[in-house]
Each structure stands twice: as C-alpha cells, then as structure tokens.
C-alpha cells in the first residue's frame, strides 16, 4: 500500500507535479481569502480566461509562455482594477467585459492560425505531464512574492478588503493595495494554470477560502486555514490524479469540493445543535478560534 503510494515519486515529473500542486494550492488558498472577502470570486474565473488569450497569442507568436501570458494577464488585471475603481460600472461587469473579450481573442487566434495541439487541452484542464523545473521555479517565485505582500502589507490589505473608504482616510493607499493584490493574483493564476487549467483555477481560489470562512470568525485564522487546506487539497488531488488517471485540475477541485461539503455538513449540524440549545462539546467554529 505504502509502496503503491510512494511509487510514483520515483518519477521526476510526478515529484515536480506534486510540488507545484501543493504550492499552487497554498498560493490560491491564501490569495482566495482576499478574492472571496472582496466579493470578487468571479475575478479568478475571469482572469484565468483572460490569461488564456495571452497563452494563445504567445503560443502562436512563439514567445515565452510565462512572459507573454504573464504580461497579458497583468494588463487585464490592471484594466479590471482601473475600471472597477471608477465606480461607473460594478466589478462583476468590468471583469465580464475585459476577461471574456480576452478569452474570445484567444479562441479566435486559435481558430485562425490553428491550435497548438496538446497545449490547448493542457491550458484548459491542466496536465501533470507538462510540469517541468521551470514551472516549479515560477510558482516558487510567485509564492515568495505573495507571501511577502501578505506579510509586509497584512494590515493595509485587511483594512482595504474590509473597509476601503475608511482605510483610505486612515492613510492606506488603497489604489496601490488593490493594484498590488491584482498583479499578484494574475501572477498566481498564471503560475498555476499549467497544473490546474484555465477552467478550474477559479475553483481552487474560491473553495479553500470559502471552506475556511465556515470554520472561523478571525481573519488571521481564515488566512492560515485557507492556505493549509489549499496545500492539502493540491497534494492529495495530484496523488489521486495519478492513481485514478484523471486530469490533475478536476481531481484537485473535487478534493477541495469534498472538503467544502464535509465542513458545510459538520458546521451545519453543530450550528443547529447550538441554536437548539443541545449540550455538545464546543462548536467547531469556537474550537478553531
């Protein structure tokens, strides 16, 4: 049993895949906290599609994928941020317009000049086979970037996420905070696309954070829980992906969704018992706090 579990670790591509999936899970778990609390869950979905446009363009132009799609994704993210801050239209509409246009451009480029074969499916659903040392380094760098942002701007980011107007009055440069967060988010999506795929990145951004929110009423604890749960889902999901011979993206998302369902049921039961005044051990939320 243990040999069967450890067997795949003999292969370098699998070790890389597990490493990237675990780091991607932790990264998306942490960034997802801000995405979910800002009520911008759709941005993960939108940005991953916008980056697909950049992926198509860089693949056809023969330029480095990380460079081309990265620049494209960051430009889209900053455009969304700019449009949203003008408050003429809501963030959901801004995300909808910019990212779908970018995605449509990607599809049109593939239709006009031909698809890039396997890389098309890999971009959509993620692939363990495509994970190389470059991907490991890329995601490690983005993890360091995200950790530095969260660690050094923890209070300003929390204040901007919770109450941007008061944060602004209190001396926080909320425009800069939003821009930094959006750029790191775009980099996170770009770095995780290879494993998770365009269509499933959004789920890994949202599910661990939403699960963590059900377990705690503290921002700091939510950030910690979401990061750990994202990493665990990435690790388990990538291992299951190999053993079940299913693409890595869907497997990781299904593991995260299963965890969400379990927590939803458990917290629902404890919540109803508490409301009914039935004597039980400390409720889950209180225990975690």
């Amino acid at each position, binding site marked *: 049993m243990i040999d069967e579990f450890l067997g795949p670790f003999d292969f370098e591509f699998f070790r890389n895949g597990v490493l990237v999936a675990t780091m991607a899970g932790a990264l998306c778990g942490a960034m997802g906290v801000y995405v979910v*609390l800002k009520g911008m869950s759709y941005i993960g979905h939108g940005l991953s599609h916008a980056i697909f446009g950049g992926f198509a363009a860089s693949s056809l132009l023969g330029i480095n994928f990380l460079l081309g799609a990265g620049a494209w994704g960051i430009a889209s993210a900053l455009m969304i941020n700019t449009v949203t801050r003008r408050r*003429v239209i809501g963030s959901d509409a801004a995300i909808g317009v910019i990212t779908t246009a970018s995605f449509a451009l990607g599809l049109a480029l593939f239709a006009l000049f031909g698809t890039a074969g396997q890389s098309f499916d890999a971009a959509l659903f993620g692939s363990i086979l495509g994970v190389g040392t470059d991907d490991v380094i890329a995601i490690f760098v983005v993890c360091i970037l995200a950790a530095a942002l*969260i*660690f*050094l*701007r*923890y*209070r*300003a980011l*929390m*204040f901007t*996420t*919770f*109450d941007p*107007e*008061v*944060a*602004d*009055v*209190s*001396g*926080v440069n909320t425009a800069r905070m939003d821009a930094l967060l959006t750029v790191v988010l775009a980099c996170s999506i770009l770095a995780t696309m290879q494993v998770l795929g365009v269509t499933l990145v959004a789920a890994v951004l949202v599910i661990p954070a939403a699960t963590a*929110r059900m377990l*705690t*009423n*503290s*921002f*700091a*604890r*939510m950030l910690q829980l979401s990061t750990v749960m994202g990493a665990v889902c990435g690790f388990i999901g990538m291992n299951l992906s190999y053993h079940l011979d299913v693409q890595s993206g869907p497997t990781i998302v299904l593991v995260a969704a299963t965890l969400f369902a379990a927590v939803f049921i458990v917290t629902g039961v404890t919540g109803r018992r508490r409301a009914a005044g039935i004597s039980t051990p400390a409720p889950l939320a209180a225990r975690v*706090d």
Partner: protein
Amino acid sequence: MSRSERHELLCLAGVTCGYASEAVLVDVDMAIHSREFVGIVGPSGAGKTTALRVLAGSLRPAHGSVTRKAGLRVAYVPQVETINWSFPVTVRECVLMSRVRGRRLPWASRAERSQVAEVLARLDIDELADRHIRELSGGQQQRVFIARALLGEPELLLMDEPTSGVDVRLRHEVLHLLDDLNARGLAIVLTTHDLNGIAAHLPRIVCLNRSVIGDGEPHEVLTSDVLERTYGASLEVLEHGGMPVVVDSYRRAQRPHVMESHA
C-alpha cells in the same frame, strides 16, 4: 472656550463637489476648530455624507479649497449599515486595523496590545475583544468602530449617522460617549437626522441642503425659517427646559382632522 480661541483644523471655502457630473455640494463654507462638537443635519440627499468625505479628504472638490492643519490626524467612522458584518474579523483585529503606519509585521507588538486593551477598556468593551463583530449589540458595535478610530489618536473624529436606526437608550448612550470624548479634547463632526438629540447634546449645528443654510448654536439655527429652508417642510420649534424641540407642524395640524374623519 469660544470658537475664536480654538485653532482651526479644517476649512472648506466655496467647495462644490459631487459624483460624475452631478454637484451634491454647492459653494459650501465651513470651518472646524479644535475641541468642537458639530452636528450636520439635513434631509436625505442633502450632501451630509459627501461633506464628511470632503472633510476626511477622501473626496476632492471640483471647485473651492480645503485647508487643513499640517499633519492633522482624522478618523472616520462610517454608517454601521455600510459595514460588511459577514467579514471574519474579531473586535481586537478590527480595532488594530487603524494601526497601519509604522509597524509592518502582521502581529501586534506588546505596546500595541496594551494600547488596544486600554482603548477597549475605556469604551467598556474589553471583555469582547475575541468576539466576532456581528455577535455584539448595536451599541457595542458602534463602540468598536469608535475604538478603531481612537486607536489612531485622531484630533478630529468624523462620524456618519452614529444614531441612525438605534433606539432612544442607545442614542443617549452613543451621544453621552461622544460628549465625554469631546470633553477630553477630541473635535467631533457627525451627521444625523435626529434634530432633537443633537439639540440636547451638541453646541454647534450646521443645516445643510446642498449648501449651508444655517450654522451656529442650536437656538440660533433650529428656527422654523431655517428648518423649512433646509427640509422644504413646515417644522415648528418649541422650547422645553431651555432647549429647542422640533415638531412636525404638518402632523400636528392634520391629526385632529384625521380623528374627526374617523369619528
């Protein structure tokens, strides 16, 4: 201490501003001095919150000027209706948010923990530090956001509708707390719809309806003429215990008629 003996914190001169192409405030002049306690009243849509945003510096005027004392520390307490109550934040985390300058590490220093404990104790909510903000009563929630503002050691506290949607007891509780903070030297500007509440507590009232209609002590400003020009409705001002009391003269006139028609 008269207004002239206090130093000026903020001054709006001929300020016109709004959102998109619509002007919400037109040619507003208003000066706020140290240790003042000012209430801004006016009908819905009169520009009260916009005036606070201009005072806070989060909204720039299209015309006119805003002069502020160098290094002025301003704190802003928003309407509780605008707070995201499902946000995962404990009382302690919420209060500590205002300490965004200086220390960059996520966790509080020993000095910060002590300051948070002190401000929570001062507002009598120290036992609630680890509770989620949604689990508190209305008065406690208001105190949490005042505590967050006070931790920034402001010279001027701006509060948007601190007494909206609260019962009489809570309204008194909040206004007495603000009275106490003002007596300790904090300048306060608040917006409200509660004319009689502020007439009893505040020494200065500004009547606003896109521009300043009246500005002065309650007995100077709370007159039928000023209130009618501010609200566009007939209001009667009586005196009770030496304080002005505003009543709706339309209802007073109509009630006997309604009762007669029912009879």
